[in-house]
């Protein structure tokens, strides 16, 4: 039988192993971004802004020009890069602590200005790299190292729905929430990432894709249990949908 190649490593990804924990979905998100960049043929003009947290070393895996921003400031860095060089395709890759806590001001205002940047927002409902503390997206009753009795809304508020909140603004062009925990979600996630980049390239405004992801290590679960937990616990709180699409 003739050998048929049905999948290969994206051209813009290095042939290296990542440092992520077993069952972590950063690797899938990385790959989807790389595939989209390859398909759009923008490797030479794409510039990423790496966040703080586990994915700070994303530039070791995806072969592009990169910045590495201070905690939460990726949208400010991306804003200025894009304003200085409108010919570039500029995107940030940010976790929930980075984007929804310390960097909340930057993301809201970049979105509200309609900056022509794309934001990939990894929401795993916890702080990963610092060891499993509560995030703004932590679910009610979810136990973390700083909510040992479970997140109590009276003490710590409610999980912030970033995609919904930014959708209330006039300027964003594309806002969607997806997941990557099962193949059926992965296909939709890639479509959303592609739309986000196209929104920018076609000058239709700010774009953000929120990706519901896993953190088996800090959740204290097996990779399979973590995958199921996203489906059973996170998706009901953070529904998957396109909140805004370019007109």
């Amino acid at each position, binding site marked *: 039988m003739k050998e048929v190649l049905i999948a290969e490593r994206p051209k813009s990804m290095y042939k290296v192993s990542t440092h992520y924990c077993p069952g972590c979905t950063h690797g899938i998100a990385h790959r989807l971004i790389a595939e989209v960049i390859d398909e759009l043929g923008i490797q030479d003009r794409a510039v990423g802004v790496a966040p703080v947290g586990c994915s700070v070393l994303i530039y070791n895996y995806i072969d592009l020009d990169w910045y590495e921003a201070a905690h939460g400031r990726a949208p400010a860095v991306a*804003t*200025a890069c894009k304003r200085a060089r409108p010919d570039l395709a500029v995107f940030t890759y940010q976790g929930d602590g980075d984007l929804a806590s310390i960097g909340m001001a*930057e993301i809201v205002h970049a979105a509200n200005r309609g900056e022509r940047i794309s934001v990939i927002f990894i929401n795993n409902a916890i702080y990963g790299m610092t060891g499993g503390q509560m995030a703004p997206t932590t679910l009610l009753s979810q136990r973390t190292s700083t909510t040992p009795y479970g997140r109590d809304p009276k003490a710590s508020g409610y999980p912030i729905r970033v995609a919904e909140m930014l959708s209330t603004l006039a300027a964003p062009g594309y806002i969607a929430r997806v997941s990557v925990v099962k193949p059926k979600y992965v296909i939709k996630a890639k479509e959303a990432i592609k739309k986000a980049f196209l929104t920018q390239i076609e000058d239709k405004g700010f774009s953000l894709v929120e990706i519901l992801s896993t953190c088996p290590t800090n959740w204290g679960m097996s990779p399979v249990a973590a995958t199921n937990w996203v489906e059973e616990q996170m998706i009901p709180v953070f529904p998957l949908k396109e909140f805004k699409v370019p007109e």
Partner: protein
Amino acid sequence: MGERVLMKGNEALAEAAIQAGCRYFFGYPITPQNEIPEYMSRRLPEVGGVYLQSESEVATINMLFGAAGAGVRVMTSSSSPGISLMSEGISYIAGAELPCVIMNVMRAGPGLGGILPGQADYFQATRGGGHGDYRLLILTPGTLQEAIDLVMKAFDLADLYRNPVMVLVDGFMGQMMEAVEFKVPEKLELPDKKEWAVGYRKERGRRAIVKTLSLEPDPLEEHNRRLQEKYRRIEKNEVRHESYMMDDDVELVMVAYGTTSRIVRSSLKALRAEGIKAGMVRPITAWPFPYEPFKKLPPSVKSVLAVEMSCGQMVEDIKLGVAERFPVHFYGRCGGNAPSVEEVVRAAKEILGC
């Protein structure tokens, strides 16, 4: 060009930046420097530039990180509490070796303090403010004309050393008006930013990463050593000062920068009129500080007097230069007050016992 015009300090600073090729300005309003962003918002679109009012000083300085990392001439301006908010980002910019210009039109502190002029950010400017082993080049002009010339120089120095440069003035200078002239500075041979800035992957044939993280100790130590070598080069090449009335038989050496140096200049005339042999050393760079003129003070000197609109922050640098050869005194006002000529003359006479 070549024409003398009457301009307000803040606007002169802004125009000088545009003349120097700055096309990107990010900033957040704070008194007493608001005429700078206001002027930029009007002028930059005229020259094909970008003005953006950010959501905070924290965002501002990270926008400088983004624009400088893309290889363009970029600037912000702020005042004391705003610079405090930027301090973290300044450390990142210095760590990533990005060129940019930061103007600090100082007001009186600490905390919110007041909106009147001050010079109490000397420590913050020269000793850091942000974390880690880094230095900023600090330019402290004494007149608006010098401010214009130094702003133009600041962009070249930033590009030459790939280092942030701060133009440190006080609120008086921002608000005063003087006749100024915009002279085209001589063109320096500057390194090509396409070698390291993002967005030139195709031209360069390899990618660029603008970053500060280095998890391994040895490469980070090496990076720090390299930064320190650069700072030694700056100390060797860029230290600037003015000696005024520093005759061989000078008995009292006054030290002041910015607006205070102008008050001291008037005080010196009054003292000389009374036959008192006093002169001034005026730092034009606060870092690198001009230690040499203090090391070379003649034996005729009896005392050194620092005059500042702070509680004496520059005194430590003067003492390092004087190395205990002469007593160092201090006279200053703060809180938004400025020393008067009469006060400085009185302080000088008390020190000399006349």
